[in-house]
């Protein structure tokens, strides 16, 4: 097994070396040193070209299968539109005259190892220290989390305005921790940070710059994977995170309709949160209390009245699962909360911007249809028509390839090619999760990790 991995890695290195050599060469041909890599961009657009060829080529059979053809067309439009919209996402500059007071809220359970480092970073940001408040909630940890919190509080309390540590002996859940933080906070903007996320120094000023707009309810930061070099699984997740933020959130952000400002690093306006804090805290779905997907639910409440955007410059790093079992559990949790909150969002999204609305419902359609398309391509057609799912798997691979190339262009040489293969593999492998999430939506076990 290890030998195989070494072999795969060595092949990857070879590919990467060849590409970097070719791209340096191609860069030298054209202009002087720029960060535009002609070879990679060519590959990127070539992939789009191949996808277009595939789509036009299969367009002949549209009349035969309206549903599946519609899926094929819509998913192409949707994905291409993400790249296009993200490309035109407006950059907002930091306004030195607008510096609201901020509160960091960090709920933590059994994070003794990370929590110190997480909190320590709050006192190292490029922001007026007297406008910073930290509220850390120890949610019934059984390890040294509380001690670590106190230790770091001691250290930073002199630098910043205020530190407060809440110590719960019994575990209440992350949602309660977040709500407690909001209730105890005194500052204007609340920044939720996960106990295993680490922010960059300029994160705060970038997050708050959007709040000068009174319609702004929430801002999502950009989160990268801290432990991406651990293994292939985390490398794959690094790619997924990058694309999910840089392309998908960015595209939603164009219309101020980011559907999830994640708990790992997002800012919310406290006064707006207070409007529905109780409702959110006691949220239940189909009679069962909601114990996960807290961030998505919170964003939904904001979106009903206000805007939510994504800020690419506000960077944080978070730790992701490095083994398959944990990863599958996390994904399952996310899928469940996605189903729940998307259904809720369906009830008010039509009131928002028309274009945003169209794309949102498009996405809902795609998500619902995808398991059927998957089943048809991988099981139904091979069995009934002996038709191999080459087009489906090839198309999926090309789409992911597009994402991979974008990632490679933007972040430089990383294990992108392998990550794409792994992403592709996991997409196929974990396709059952969405329908399973629908079936088990009321089951709230796996709620904590």
């Amino acid at each position, binding site marked *: 097994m290890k030998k195989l991995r070494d072999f795969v890695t060595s092949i990857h290195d070879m590919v990467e070396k060849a590409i970097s050599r070719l791209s340096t060469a191609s860069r030298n041909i054209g202009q002087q040193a720029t960060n535009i890599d002609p070879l990679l961009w060519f590959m990127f657009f070539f992939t789009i070209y191949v996808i277009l060829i595939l789509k036009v080529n299969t367009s002949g059979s549209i009349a035969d299968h309206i549903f599946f053809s519609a899926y094929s067309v819509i998913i192409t439009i949707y994905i291409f539109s993400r790249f296009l919209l993200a490309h*035109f996402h407006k950059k907002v500059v930091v306004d030195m005259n607008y510096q609201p007071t901020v509160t960091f809220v960090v709920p933590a359970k059994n994070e003794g190892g990370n929590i110190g480092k997480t909190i320590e970073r709050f006192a190292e940001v490029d922001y007026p220290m007297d406008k910073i408040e930290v509220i850390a909630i120890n949610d019934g940890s059984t390890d040294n989390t509380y001690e670590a919190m106190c230790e770091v509080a001691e250290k930073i309390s002199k630098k910043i305005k205020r530190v407060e540590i809440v110590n719960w002996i019994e575990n209440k859940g992350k949602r309660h921790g977040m709500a407690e933080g909001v209730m105890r906070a005194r500052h204007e903007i609340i920044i939720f940070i996960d106990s295993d996320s680490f922010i960059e120094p300029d994160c705060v000023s970038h997050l708050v710059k959007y709040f000068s707009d009174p319609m702004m309810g929430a801002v999502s930061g950009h989160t990268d994977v801290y432990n991406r070099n651990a293994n292939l699984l985390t490398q794959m997740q690094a790619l997924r995170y990058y694309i999910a933020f840089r392309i998908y959130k960015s595209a939603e*952000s164009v219309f101020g309709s980011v559907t999830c400002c994640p708990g790992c690093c997002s800012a919310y306006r406290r006064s707006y949160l207070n409007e529905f804090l109780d409702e959110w805290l006691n949220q239940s779905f189909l009679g069962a209390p909601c114990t996960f997907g807290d961030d998505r639910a919170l964003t939904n409440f904001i979106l009903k009245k206000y805007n939510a955007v994504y800020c690419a410059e506000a960077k944080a790093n978070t730790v992701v699962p490095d083994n398959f079992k944990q990863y599958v559990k996390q994904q399952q949790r996310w899928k469940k909360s996605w189903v729940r909150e998307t259904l809720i969002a369906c009830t008010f999204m039509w009131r928002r911007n028309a274009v945003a609305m169209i794309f949102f419902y498009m996405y809902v359609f795609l998500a619902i249809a995808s398991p059927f398309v998957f089943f048809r391509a991988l099981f139904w057609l091979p069995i009934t028509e002996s038709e191999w799912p080459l*087009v489906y798997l090839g198309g999926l691979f090309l789409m992911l390839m597009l994402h991979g190339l974008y990632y490679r262009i933007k972040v430089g040489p990383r294990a992108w090619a392998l990550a794409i293969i792994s992403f592709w593999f996991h997409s196929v492998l974990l396709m059952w999760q969405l329908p399973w999430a629908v079936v088990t939506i009321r089951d709230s076990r796996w709620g904590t990790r």
Partner: protein
Amino acid sequence: MYFSFPRKKIILLAGILLVLLYSVYQTFNFKSQLFGESPFGQIFVRTMSDAYKTLVYTVQEKGGNFASVFSSDNVYMSTPEKADRIKNARAIPVLTYHAIMTSKDETKQSPESFEGHNIGLKEFEDQMFTLKKNGWETITLLEFQSFMREGKEIPEKSFLLTFDDGAKESYYPVEPILKVLEYEAVTFILPSFSQGNGSHYYLSENEISRAIKSGRWEVGSHGNNVHTFVPVDNASNTAPALANRKWIPEKNRTETFEEYENRIREDLLVSQKKLEDMFNVPIKTFAFPFGEFGQLSKNIPEEDMILPTVATDIYDYAFYQWWKGEGFTFNYREPYKGMMKRISVKPTWSGDDLLTMLENGKPKTLPYLDTFQNNQGWLSTWGNFDIADSQLKMSAGETATGASIILDGSKDWKNYTLHLDVDSAENTGVFVFIRYRDHENFATCNIGNGFAHVEQTIRGKQQVIKGNRSESISVPKGPFRVDIEVHDRKVSCSINGAVLVDTEFLDGILDYGGIGLKIWDKNSGLSSITIDTLNITDSNVIPQR
């Protein structure tokens, strides 16, 4: 709204989009030029499978030799090289195929009228490889023509391989086989379907051009607009368009013979012209759609049949499909002849079945002795026969009055003496065909109880040249011997050494021809005959038993 549209971004993106869309458009343009209407997936699969199959076939074909090169004694039997073969062919078989099915999908695409003609790839591979292994080689149309008309010698075991309709599936699966076996083929194209980009089913112009360019393919015409069934009366009966007078609903009548001739002449000329314009090669061959040249016509009597004349006026050769009862399976050297027959290969035939058919159809050498150990080429033209226990047995079926057979490969026999050891349970008489050319032209020694005739059938019209009637003439029950001597225009028929009838006035048309046998009785289920030995000598002397 959080977007911005800097002019630089927009211009760059618009430029890239334009280039992208233009590339996509051009790609499809280019694809249609090369592959016609085939979807990309199919092209990809075909290209891959071509490469893969070529490799597999090469290993299959050359593999034996590679292995023997490394074997210890380093001695292996080699088949003679193509060029070294003895040029002794006397007749050429022509094989007809339609589409070669690589998957069940292809049957869905093929027009309904083709059903049952297409053959599976496995069977086709088996047939071609079996023929190659047994020394059979393809020839080109030019070789066919120069053999037929210019006296050029070509090796025995040569055949012409043809495909009808110009389906994509009659080209792509075949190509790697031709490549590896070094075979050539002729494809009969429907110009109205293959024009321009063709279709999903039919080859496009450019695909055919490429095929021609490869040197492995030649093109013939399959008619422009006549590969279809048309109404032939007001009762909405339909029949092949080329072999039948069409019903004209506006005029409430079928077309006149003149209108018919004009229509078919026009069609054959147009298809020739179109193909010549498309591919810039002379189109000298034609294949009758559905193999019909009028023999099954619904409204054109045989004496008014003009299609063969029209077709051979316009083309050097017009190919129809051989059928059971029509005559021999091979095309013999007949310089004046334009109508050529083809064996339509059935999907159920194995490679060995086809090989047997061709080996049996090969012209037979004289003298010829048949002790009926196995079937050397006896073909039924009517009813049933059986070769078993070193005997040839013919008997009328329960509801039939008789049966007839011919010996394939005997068509070019000229002078011969034929000795038959016959055993007859019922004295229903004996018919022996001599100088048999085809089902409409042959002579017969017809010996029954009380008479002995030499008869000839010319263009389907039967006539007694000479007949003897006598009480003393009878066909014995039990074993007896039949001797028939054919020499130039002389024929004599004998039973047990006694000449019963002879003549010197055999028609000049029947100056050569093969042999066959027939039994008949007015009562059904009665006639039967058993042959123990057939011996053919080229001497006038009847050998002593």
